[in-house]
């Protein structure tokens, strides 16, 4: 079993033992965040990051070029759910980083609470991302806004939050679920519409649009940069 850091992305690893598996280094050794596989290699514990469970992992597998998460990054995560993806981001950004995790469903956020108890870089916020005026008192300016809410107005939600919290030069990522925006249109048309809507504000540039199939068919990750 061998492990090597990704060529482009610091703190993201590939574990090679026959197959190639994505992983992050466990910030809390011995403790699982969900039911992921742990692997110990040369005294270091890694957590396998499954692209079928996480759209961000799927994006990396599909050749994502923009991965803005670094040690110390500040992140606003909209739709953090129980924290599957966030736990890996938490590994990457380390103890000096921070994730403000907004989730509206209280039965989902229970698991996130457990995660936040030992991952001190996660801050659970039980609110709707549609109402940033309810949590702007707690959130600082951030380097990254990551959104995965699967809602018809998700673009609007992204723009409002990024306008408020994203620093200039920061990155906004949105996992677009075509069917929750419009089931009647082909996904490509929807991605185009999302791009145009964000670019139409004049405050963002498009960095890339990445299809997430086969891991998440009819999903895309679209990445913007704030001017």
């Amino acid at each position, binding site marked *: 079993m061998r492990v090597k850091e990704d060529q482009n992305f610091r703190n993201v690893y590939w574990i090679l033992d026959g197959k190639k598996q994505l992983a992050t280094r466990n910030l809390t050794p011995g403790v699982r965040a969900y039911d992921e596989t742990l692997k110990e290699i040369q005294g270091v514990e890694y957590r396998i990051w499954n692209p079928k469970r996480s759209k961000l992992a799927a994006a990396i597998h599909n050749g994502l070029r923009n991965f803005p998460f670094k040690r110390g990054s500040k992140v606003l995560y909209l739709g953090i759910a129980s924290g599957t993806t966030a736990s890996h981001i938490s590994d990457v950004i380390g103890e000096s980083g921070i994730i403000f995790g907004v989730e509206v469903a209280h039965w989902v956020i229970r*698991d996130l609470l457990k995660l936040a108890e030992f991952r001190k870089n996660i801050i659970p916020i039980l609110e709707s991302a549609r109402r940033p005026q309810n949590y702007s008192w707690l959130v600082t300016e951030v380097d990254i806004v990551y959104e995965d809410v699967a809602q018809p107005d998700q673009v609007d939600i992204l723009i409002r939050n990024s306008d408020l919290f994203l620093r200039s030069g920061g990155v906004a990522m949105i996992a677009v679920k075509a069917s929750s925006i419009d089931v009647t249109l082909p996904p490509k048309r929807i991605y185009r519409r999302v791009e145009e809507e964000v670019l139409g504000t004049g405050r963002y540039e498009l960095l890339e649009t990445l299809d997430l199939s086969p891991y998440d068919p009819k999903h895309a990750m679209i990445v913007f940069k704030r001017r």
Partner: protein
Amino acid sequence: MRLFVAMQPYGILVLDEKGSIVDKFPFPKDAKAISDIVGGGSSLREILRELISRIRADEIVVNDAALKGILADMGINATLSPEERVFLEVRRSPLRYASQLWGDLKQKEYLYLLNEIGILLTKSKVKERLSSLDQQIIKAVDFVDHSNKALNIIAPTIREWYSVHFPELDELLEDHYEFIKLVSIEPNRKKMREDILRSVGFSERMAEKIIESSRNSMGAELSDSDLEAIRNIASSWINLYEAKRGMELYIEELMRRAAPNLSAVVHPLVGARLIAIAGSLERLANLPASSIQILGAHRAIFMHLTKGTKPPKHGVIFQAKEVRNSPKSLRGKIARLLATKIAIAAKVDVYGGGKYVGDELRREIDEKIRKYMEAVRSEG
């Protein structure tokens, strides 16, 4: 002058257009105290009242919806606008502003505090929403109970009425739903055809039987308008029935969220009834197993006295399939066992902070019941 009132984790700032602090109220440097203030206690109101009395402004701009609400209560009109440049500045340099209220502060210390505040606030909100969830469950259980009563009262009327036209059907279809569903789709016995009956969901054999007896029926002819009248009430009955079914599924969903442990131990509908009778999930969790075991028996006694139903031996717990489906001699024992596990499950749901032990409790129940059954069998 336009003044900006910013709530922040470390306190409340009053700022001018340039972002200089005009006035301030530091919160105690303690996550619990902060989350209490921000989480909707009366102290936030007091703090604001005090601050507002000290400042003079033509317009007040706030960064938070709660501040606006409190000010409105005090008769002060404030603009809610977290996107103002001044607020952006405050969010950009949290440590710089925080240190003006708390003295020097390290980044890590600040982040830890945010983490703790987030956890405390979320916990108390989860608790709040859960208790509103069980109130929803109680309303929904009420609807199901009342619907059941109405359905059971009306069904015989429909059957009797329809029997004028097709008396043989009463014998053939014991189930109210099947009977009335058919009437709601095709009340005219002469127009009943196999494809219609199959589409209602009858087996081939049953469909043939019904057609045969419809052809030889001794029932009276009814006019189209008579049949239409019967069809109308049959459809209404079916609508109510389906609404009730839908509500039952909704209750199951609510229960799995509000009380996942309890829902693993007894069917969510039985669990929901227990919550409804106890008054709330929290009250159920505070009852001893012995009370849980007879919960609901009072109503059965009342029904017995007023409606002449059978006298009750037991409460709601006896609706659980584990009890109903077991030999009579074991029912009391199994009910007691279930009550014990329900008491534990409800406590974990309320006080366990999201812990899940449902599967374990379920296994223990199944094992004990198997032992009881073996003992009964070996006694022969």
